[in-house]
């Protein structure tokens, strides 16, 4: 283990360049995965704590476009096994100076899911603000939404970044603001095992609505798929860039060290020994770069989380499984990037040493 470190120290400048190129790639993979994963898990968490079944307009691409008749909630509550059902309007609007803020219109029975830190639940013409946006807007008494003034009646705290950066009003005001009856219903059950049969019963109520368990809703939610796909694509690009960086730097390293590998060949060390040697060297860089990129990413995520600009919407998390996955990706990246230059090194003809004679 000591020899590869000596070799790396000897070639410090190039070692540093390889380290930096790997670190940047790995950090990019970490950040894009953490941020997209954070968005998805935050929204999933919100939906999951809120209900076991989600009802939307049938065939809708996004819950923002969903429009269903809130009176159907009363029919759903009647279904056997349903503990509670509430209607929700999901919207977004600018709130000076913020360009876009999540607005939630919720039915009376859902106010209890917001923990108020001050004030009271909103009546008509009132809103409660998430603590984050309350701070960002510097403790406003009123806010303007679509030219309409709302009195801030309270402040709530939520672990979920979306909500903490959002505005909550009652269903009536939400309906007026966004010209719809309801976006979705959230249904809680007495017994999760009955969820399939309840889904069937809800779907039978009206051909225009579609009920899904929260889990299957999350699995099939288009926005999540888009987020995941783009993050995968960007991650793959970062991976390829990392490999290309390693290939080009390692090719230079091999060229610098031609005599070293020529000597090894001439004294009968096999090609495989040389390949292993170079792989060991990049592997060590990869381990250090991985640790560095992990620390860097955690730092950046921490900064983003506390940046007012993002209102807590971006809340990346690096889970142990993400870290493990990225670790494997880093190792594979180092290996693939080194393989070609290493094979080239292993094929250096010792004859070059003989003909050169001098230095």
């Amino acid at each position: 283990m000591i020899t590869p470190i000596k070799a790396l120290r000897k070639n410090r400048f190039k070692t540093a360049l390889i380290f930096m190129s790997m670190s940047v790639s790995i950090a990019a993979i970490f950040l894009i995965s953490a941020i997209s994963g954070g968005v998805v898990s935050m929204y999933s968490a919100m939906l999951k704590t809120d209900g076991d079944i989600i009802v939307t307009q049938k065939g809708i691409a996004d819950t923002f476009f969903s429009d269903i008749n809130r009176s159907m909630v009363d029919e759903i509550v009647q279904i056997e096994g349903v503990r509670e059902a509430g209607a929700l309007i999901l919207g977004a609007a600018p709130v000076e100076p913020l360009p876009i803020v999540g607005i939630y219109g919720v039915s009376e029975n859902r106010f209890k899911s917001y923990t108020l830190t001050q004030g009271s639940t909103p009546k008509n013409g009132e809103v409660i603000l998430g603590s984050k946006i309350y701070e960002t807007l510097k403790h406003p008494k009123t806010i303007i939404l679509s030219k309409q003034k709302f009195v801030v009646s309270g402040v709530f705290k939520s672990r979920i970044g979306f909500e903490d950066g959002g505005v909550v009003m009652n269903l009536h005001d939400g309906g007026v603001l966004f010209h719809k009856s309801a976006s979705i219903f959230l249904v809680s059950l007495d017994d999760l095992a009955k969820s399939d049969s309840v889904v069937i019963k809800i779907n039978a109520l009206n051909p225009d609505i579609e009920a899904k368990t929260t889990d299957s809703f999350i699995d099939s939610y288009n926005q999540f798929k888009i987020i995941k796909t783009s993050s995968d694509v960007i991650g793959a690009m970062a991976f390829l860039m990392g490999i290309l960086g390693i290939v080009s730097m390692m090719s230079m390293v091999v060229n610098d060290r031609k005599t070293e590998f020529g000597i090894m060949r001439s004294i009968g060390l096999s090609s495989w020994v040389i390949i292993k040697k170079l792989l060991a060297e990049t592997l060590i860089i990869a381990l250090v770069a991985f640790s560095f990129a992990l620390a860097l990413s955690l730092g950046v995520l921490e900064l983003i989380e506390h940046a007012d600009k993002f209102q807590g919407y971006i809340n990346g998390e690096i889970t142990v499984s993400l870290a493990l996955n990225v670790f494997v990706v880093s190792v594979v990246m180092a290996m693939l990037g080194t393989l070609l230059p290493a094979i080239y090194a292993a094929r250096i003809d010792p004859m070059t040493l003989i003909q050169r004679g001098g230095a």
Partner: protein
Amino acid sequence: MRIQAKNIEHYYGIEHVLRGVDISIEAGSFTAIIGESGSGKTTLLSILSTLLNPTSGEVTFDEKAISELGNIDVFRRHNIGFVFQFHYLISYLTLRENIALSALDEATVEPLMESLGIGRLAARYSDEVSGGERQRAAIARALVNRPAVVFADEPTGNLDTKNALGVYELFKRFSQEGTGFVVASHDKKIADYADTIIEMEDGKIVKILKR
């Protein structure tokens, strides 16, 4: 081991540099190849040591053609040593580590360094020792697996007379212990140490002197 070259012809492009060379080398002998610059010494040495394939003719080790020797890396590691004009020690490794690089048995490294007079330099790096010491380390690296033959091309080309004679002395000593040496050199003084002197001219062996 007996290395034989039969009717070797070699061309670099259209340049005909070896013209029907026959030579036989025994383990435990010390053969010097001398001749004018450009006479083909390095080329012959490269062919004998399996580093270069001749245009025609055959090199055999104990009557076996190179293609019958099995894995050539393994064969080289066990049977052939090289000393070049330049030491080519790896600069980030100590002398000891350089010599141990190909050692089949690490325990042989230190006694060998002692016997070459560089034992106390084991932990030094190549830029921390003299030219003669570097070349002795390179010789130790070639000898570490006690190969049947060590090939050396101008091994004293970068050394002063005193160090050069020291190197020939070493070759003589180790050849008496059973390792064969084939040394290409401009230096006429090598003749005082070698037991066979082969003189080349224009790609041909013109004289073989045995003592």
